[in-house]
């Protein structure tokens, strides 16, 4: 048996009779960068919401790191090491760049409910936070207000904040969406870099990004998982070509 960090069985979500996620059996290999692709409205974000328990599944099971997490609240899933990012930019705009990362780190110190202590007690994690910021190239901007960062930097900060949770599995929802070429390249190599020793499941529309960093690829269409495999396997899959790639032009560049 292969080492799957995440497995779902028959995972489904129905909104008022509309099935957004339909009997998904997904298996994510430990240590892989696993890309999830599919047209708009395929149910990718909904699937992420189910995995991280932001939504209640209508049916199915989720196993993460050897245990069933189907019945856990989202914060517990996060604490166990499955940490997600969001499709829309999600930094804490009212906090500094450094504080965005510290807020992810401080919970583990057990200080977060201490309303009577000075914020200075958090200085003990400054070094750790700066090291993480350094990984994503934001160390010099540590004291900036997060809300004032340009878009590409915000996404990098989100990665840093997610990373601060020391996740086993990172779920990234379109981390390169809305970026220019340069930022896409930067964030792509960043993901590659920070994935060392972790598993990444990412939604990605940019096939160039997928081709360059994904070990495994899954295709979702109308809530159903069409295929899973390497980029070559998936782009050769008849059903995928017919349903998603619409003739195979876009996937055909792989070689």
């Amino acid at each position: 048996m292969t080492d799957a960090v995440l497995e779902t069985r028959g995972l489904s979500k129905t909104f008022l009779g509309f099935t957004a996620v339909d009997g998904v059996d997904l298996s994510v290999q430990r240590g892989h960068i696993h890309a999830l692709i599919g047209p708009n409205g395929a149910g990718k974000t909904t699937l992420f919401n189910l995995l991280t328990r932001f939504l209640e599944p209508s049916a199915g099971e989720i196993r993460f790191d050897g245990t069933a997490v189907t019945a856990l609240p989202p914060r517990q899933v996060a604490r166990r090491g499955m940490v997600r990012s969001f499709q829309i930019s999600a930094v804490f705009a009212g906090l500094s760049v450094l504080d965005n990362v510290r807020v992810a780190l401080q919970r583990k110190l057990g200080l977060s409910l201490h309303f009577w202590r000075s914020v200075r007690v958090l200085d003990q994690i400054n070094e750790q936070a700066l090291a993480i910021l350094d990984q994503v190239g934001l160390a010099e901007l540590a004291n900036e207000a997060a809300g004032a960062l340009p878009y590409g930097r915000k996404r990098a900060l989100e990665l840093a904040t997610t990373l601060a949770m020391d996740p086993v599995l990172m779920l990234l929802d379109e981390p390169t969406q809305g970026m220019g070429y340069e930022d896409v390249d930067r964030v792509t190599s960043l993901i590659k870099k920070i994935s060392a020793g972790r598993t990444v499941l990412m939604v990605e529309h940019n096939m160039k990004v997928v081709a360059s960093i994904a070990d495994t690829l899954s295709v979702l269409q109308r809530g159903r998982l069409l295929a899973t495999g390497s980029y070559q396997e998936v782009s050769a899959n008849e059903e995928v070509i017919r349903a998603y790639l619409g003739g195979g032009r876009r996937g055909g560049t792989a070689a």
Partner: protein
Amino acid sequence: MTASFTSRRISPRASAYALLLIALIAAPWVGLYPVLGTKILCYALFACAFHLLLGYTGLASLGHAAFLGVGGYLAGYGVKAWALPPELALLAGLAAGALLGLVIGFISIRRSGIYFTMITLALAQMVYFLCVQIPQTGGEDGLQGIDRGLLFGVLDLRDDTAMYYTVLVIAVACFLFIARVVYSPFGQALQAIKDNEPRAISLGYHPPHYKLIVFILSAALTGLAGALKAISLGFVTLSDVHWMTSGHALLMTLVGGMGILSGPVVGALALVVLENKMGELGTLIAGATGIAWFTTLGESVMMVMGIVFVICVLAFRRGIMGEVVALQQRRRGTPASSSTTSASREPQP
């Protein structure tokens, strides 16, 4: 929390606070009627407590009159019926606020926006009707002639000036406490939750805990403000538990400036003074314009407050302190990338 980056290093802010404190200490000596000063401080504490919730969680409660009123009633009743010394009466008010805050907060905290506001309002109205019904509150008459007594058995609070300074010390201590809460690890988490709740959850936070704690702190301080008001002014009436008093806290906060620690203090000062001097102001305007109607201004406090509210919402949304801060930043030319960036709360285009 615009101040979160600046407050640690910028001195203009510190010197403004020092100046304000000196002014408050000197006030009775330069002609401020100490009872008016006491009233201003009580309302300032009330507004600050209310703002601790609204400004740092975004939750607009219309139930704070319940905490103020119950805190005041319990303190007043304690003095009258059980002859409690003032320090214990104040503690009773604080505890009553905290306890009621726990109950109302527990029920309301999982809602947000207008639902939260409506639930707090509904629960506070239940408290209001309870206060109308039970005999201990004195019904329509309220509790009158509450004796101030001796603080810790030594300081005679019947002296207005002694009372003023006692309230000042307590109010300043509470203000410092609120500042500490805002600039604590808890305050950081609260800010994160306010900025983006789903993101905070995805980092393992459980927002209801944080909101409930801050709700209880806010309610406790409001209860204390009610008790202080009861003891220093000597009476508690149904208007203290009336929902309009909650609206008053909201108004003071909006006029003073939201998200700024000193905002509600300034708002309370402005509105209490306005309210108290309205009669004189009306006579003045009537004399100047010859329109006799203005002499009735003193009786139409509600209407004037309404107008203030409208002006505030339409003309300067940031409130008095919000405008001051914005002006300062404009004058400084908003440093683009200095380490003391403020303006962080402004959403980027």
